[in-house]
């Protein structure tokens, strides 16, 4: 599975839909809650210039996102992880904004 950097900003009105296997439905509330918590964690860590925490959280999110069908979460987490390794704050900040927006806007369709 590729982890291409995300460079398609979510535009106003864009419908973000992810199709997820129906059997995974009971797992989704916790998955979404945890991803949103992790965005907060990473923002707080970034404010403290704690790049190691940003890197670790992004690393975990990179592995989890696509496994549930959220390839864009994996892609954005990969960008954040790499930016944390190079301590590139503007990239982390921009990508966290994208990720936060995505998590608020995405709609899950259970197939």
């Amino acid at each position, binding site marked *: *599975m590729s982890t291409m950097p995300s460079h398609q900003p979510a535009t106003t009105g864009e419908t973000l839909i992810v199709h997820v296997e129906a059997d995974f439905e009971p797992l989704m509330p916790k998955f979404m809650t945890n991803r949103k918590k992790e965005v907060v964690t990473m923002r707080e860590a970034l404010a403290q210039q704690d790049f190691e925490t940003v890197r670790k959280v992004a690393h975990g999110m990179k592995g*989890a996102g696509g496994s*549930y069908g959220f390839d864009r979460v994996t892609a954005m987490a990969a960008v954040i992880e790499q930016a944390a390794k190079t301590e590139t704050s503007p990239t982390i900040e921009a990508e966290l904004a994208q990720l936060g927006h995505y998590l608020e806007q995405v709609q899950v369709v259970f197939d």
Partner: protein
Amino acid sequence: MSVTHQPGKPTLLMAEDEEDTASLLRFLLERSGYQVVHAPDGKQAQQLIDTMPAPSLVLLDIMLPHISGLQLLPYIRKKPEWKQVPIIMLTADSSEHDIEQALASGANDYMVKPFNPRELSARLSRFLKPAV
């Protein structure tokens, strides 16, 4: 920490610290008929390795808190009753170095996260008969 075995169900030891990855793996494995014993970090994984009977297979994350999967590998292989247990490493990095080291240290296979559930089934079927 104790493990209660369910008769007739193959047991898998899963060492994975990311909560939702562990939940998904557990869901998929139990749906396929396996009993899952979960260690959320390397220290608890080591305790389970010391106390539980050898499982049918081990899923072992490379990056674990306290004791890494790479450190646990030779520890597992030193135990006579675990020598032949298939070990599949889990990694969120497809970097060659860790995978090479894992395979050289006794892992049988690896899977890069994020994973596809069908890939998980395919890799398990290399080592296990279907549980159901």
